């Protein structure tokens, strides 16, 4: 049964999704989804445990041996990312109950949870599979369900942002497909492990170069790497609160994983070094930290502010990947985990504000911090973590990122990372000022604290931010193991 864990992680939400879709209205769909996500989180934890102690898990679907059949191949990297995705889903679901009942029309609630579970299936599938075409299929499963989820937002802009995301996401996925096709034509295999053994022999061919470029651009679109990030701010802003929490904490993270897997496992290291990919990552990272953080300062919508901040955070991860050293990749993986925690907490807290007042523009939330102290506290601590204050999780990722940059004597990158933190101080400061120091307008006098069901998951993530800022053994240890699995070494 041991090996079946990796398979059940994908199959359980896959079976649950259609079942939830036909359940009667009421709270039953939510209860089933909660059960399924919690089960997935437990399974993902067990899987990580099994990988760390017994080594790589390989599962042959249908009993067909790889490289002919589809293989689920799990090492420390995927197990780590799968745990992040499953755990965030499990924390989001308790939060979802009230928020979804308020924001989604009643007759659509079963379909909403069905789409959420499909999205989870896709994201977990990407992390589990060892077959590159299967990655494309799961990528599209998660993407299609997230377009549908985003379009369920209350304002009509939700429709246009979902459309925009659909066009860009499909172009990205199709680019990925072109790249896979070109590489398949030269290697004759779709199994990523098998590809890795064949590619060094054909790496000199122009077709492989072209395929590599197509795949990188395709994933960069899915990843919202600057300047391909245009879909992200609108999509996160107008999506229902729960969807924003879930996508912000998981979808881009999984895209980072695909990027790492292809750069370091599928292609030989010398190949990526010979292309300008690394320099491009560093340049895109620097640009996104500066530009997106600056944009964040000027936003009037709180969700859009945080969305632009997400683009900036993706820039940090891109920097880590661009250094292509063990420390750099470790930093990217740590930030991947920590960013899921902090953005999860922040978007949940903003969702609680939306639950109470129905909006989150800067001028509508004046003085709310005093009426909703716990929500405000979550925003403050989440914000500190985003800035990278010592004692929070954000500090750890910044610390590793700066050390990776120092190792390579990349002074500009060091300066940009620190400057990015300063910009984060400005935009989070603006938010906190509006919430706490601006005088409240009359109409919002009767606002009370958010219900416990919204606060509890938020504070679980807030405490995780503090805990992983103080006890770094777990995250850093895992990220280092994962980076070693990818085979990156310090130059």
């Amino acid at each position: 049964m041991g090996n079946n864990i990796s398979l059940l992680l994908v199959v359980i939400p896959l079976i649950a999704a259609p079942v939830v879709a036909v359940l009667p209205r009421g709270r039953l769909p939510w209860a089933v989804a909660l059960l399924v996500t919690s089960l997935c989180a437990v399974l993902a934890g067990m899987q990580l445990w099994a990988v760390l102690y017994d080594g790589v898990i390989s599962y042959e679907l249908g009993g067909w041996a790889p490289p002919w059949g589809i293989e689920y191949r799990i090492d420390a990297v995927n197990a780590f990312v799968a745990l992040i995705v499953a755990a965030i889903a499990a924390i989001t679901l308790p939060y979802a109950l009230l928020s979804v009942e308020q924001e989604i029309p009643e007759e659509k609630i079963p379909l909403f949870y069905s789409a959420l579970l499909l999205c989870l299936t896709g994201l977990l599938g990407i992390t589990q599979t060892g077959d590159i075409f299967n990655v494309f299929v799961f990528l599209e499963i998660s993407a299609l369900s997230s377009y549908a989820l985003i379009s369920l937002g209350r304002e009509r802009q939700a429709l246009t942002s979902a459309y925009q995301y659909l066009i860009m996401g499909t172009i990205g996925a199709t680019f990925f497909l072109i790249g896979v096709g070109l590489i398949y034509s030269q290697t004759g295999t779709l199994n990523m492990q098998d590809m890795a053994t064949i590619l060094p022999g054909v790496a000199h061919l122009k077709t492989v170069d072209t395929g590599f470029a197509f795949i990188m651009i395709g994933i960069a679109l899915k990843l919202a790497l600057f300047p391909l990030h245009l879909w992200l701010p609108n999509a996160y802003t107008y999506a229902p609160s729960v969807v924003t929490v879930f996508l912000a904490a998981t979808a881009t993270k999984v895209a980072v994983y695909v990027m790492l897997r292809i750069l370091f496992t599928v292609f030989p290291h010398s190949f990526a070094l010979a292309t300008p990919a690394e320099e491009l990552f560093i340049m895109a990272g620097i640009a996104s930290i500066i530009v997106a953080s600056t944009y964040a300062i000027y936003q009037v919508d709180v969700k859009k502010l945080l969305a632009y901040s997400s683009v900036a955070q993706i820039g940090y991860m891109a920097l880590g990947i661009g250094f292509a050293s063990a420390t750099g990749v470790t930093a990217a993986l740590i930030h991947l985990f920590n960013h899921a925690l902090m953005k999860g907490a922040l978007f949940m807290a903003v969702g609680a504000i939306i639950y109470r007042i129905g909006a989150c523009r800067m001028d509508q939330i004046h003085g709310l911090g005093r009426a909703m102290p716990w929500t405000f506290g979550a925003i403050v601590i989440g914000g500190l973590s985003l800035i990278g204050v010592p004692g929070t999780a954000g500090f750890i990722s910044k610390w590793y990122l700066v050390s990776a940059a120092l190792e390579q004597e990349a002074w500009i990158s060091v300066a940009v990372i620190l400057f990015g933190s300063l910009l984060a101080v400005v935009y989070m400061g603006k938010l906190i000022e509006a919430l706490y120091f601006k005088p409240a307008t009359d109409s919002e006098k009767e606002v009370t604290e958010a219900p416990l069901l919204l606060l509890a998951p938020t504070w679980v993530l807030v405490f995780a931010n503090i805990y992983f800022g103080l006890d770094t053994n777990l995250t850093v240890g895992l990220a280092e193991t994962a980076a070693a699995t990818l085979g990156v070494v310090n130059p």
Partner: protein
Amino acid sequence: MKPNLILHVVAKFLIPLIILFALYVQFHGDFGPGGGFQAGVIFSAALILYSLVFGLDAAEQIIPPQWLRILAALGVVIYAGVGVITLLLGGNYLDYSLLGSSQIAGQHLGILLVELGVGITVAAVMLIIFFAFAGRGRT
């Protein structure tokens, strides 16, 4: 809508043939080209032709939309259920060989069931999409 005699007669003549062909593609899929995807689309084409000629209301009386939703879910469950059965029989997910007395019989049965699930879901989903677009703004 004014009934058109030629369309009615031709449709009545064609629809059984289309459905028959869909079933052929569905169940012959393990010997030659074919399978659930194609069969599902052909099958739904028959019903879409019916609703184009006889009107949406008549088509919805044949297959109520609530059924379609259940059928679409059922297909996925059949597909995934076959996988789970093979798991319970002690094999890998979708390892059909365990389903029958011999390996070939098992593979045969397995692919037939999985394609049946695929066919049901594809047919139901195509009809759901058609009804959703055609029925929009009607009431």
